[in-house]
């Protein structure tokens, strides 16, 4: 098995950090965009790009509440996203054990 077996959508530093951070939340919880940005240290534009890719793949959902300056966007991992991260972690473990 090679690194190609790893989910290419997750196997990028920023997206791996996003997935791992959101997976630390209990199921049913969401994290605000600004807190996620603080925790990971990405620029807003960069974070949005990665979130869109993960959302398009069905790995996370975003929810916007309010409007104007008071608007707030929350992000949560979907069950599909959790399963994808579990599979990624298992594949990674297999790869490392094979070295």
């Amino acid at each position: 098995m090679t690194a190609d077996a790893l989910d290419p959508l997750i196997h990028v530093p920023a997206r791996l950090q996003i997935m791992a951070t959101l997976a630390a939340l209990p199921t049913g919880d969401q994290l605000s965009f600004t807190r996620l940005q603080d925790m990971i240290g990405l620029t807003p534009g960069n974070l949005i790009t990665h979130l869109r890719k993960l959302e398009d793949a069905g790995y996370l959902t975003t929810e916007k509440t309010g409007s104007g300056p008071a608007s707030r966007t929350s992000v949560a991992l979907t069950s599909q996203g959790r399963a994808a991260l579990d599979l990624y972690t298992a594949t990674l473990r297999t790869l490392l054990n094979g070295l």
Partner: protein
Amino acid sequence: MGEASETGGAEAHENEGALDAGEAARLLAQTQRQAQRDLDFRSPLLSLVAAVVVLVGFGIVWLSVRGQHPYTGPTAASLVVLYALIAIRIGTVISAQSRAGAGVSGRSVRLRRAEGAAAAAALLAVYVLMAALVNQGNRHPAFYWVYGVAATLIALGAVWAGRSAVREDWQDLAISVAVMLIAAGSALAGPRGMWLSDGIGCCVVLLANAGALALLPGSPATGR
């Protein structure tokens, strides 16, 4: 997503450096550890503060009652110190909880509100029952201090045990059960010895908790 208030209209760009399996594993473990530390309000330091609070607070009250014959209850000065220490403890927990919970919404926030309401109801029930018993003639200070302290600790321990069971947090469940047992057992030591027994017993449990949080795998401090 994409609102100007949060993105600042910044130009998005990719940042996709190549990762080998070893680097990915390290980054994953480090991110998981950091996220767990950031999102969980519990910490060895917080537990250590609680251990000092119960030992010093209950110890000072014990010093004020240990030589009393007949028993008249804790002195006002010792109670001021005890309540001040409890206020400090509550303040540190609220501060840690609001820091860890910033930006988090959803099920766990709703659960925490329900747990707070359950704790308030349990304490209210304890004091209403105590008022009813005092009203029926149980006016000796030994009665309402032994009952008041033991019942308060048992009620809070029971609420926290329920919370821990729902979240499958076995370490917190063990601590809650230990506090309930200490509270009930300390009542046997009488109105004077109870304070020392509660203080030492709860201090030992909280120190053990601080050690477990600092050392055990899966705890917020280690994140392993």
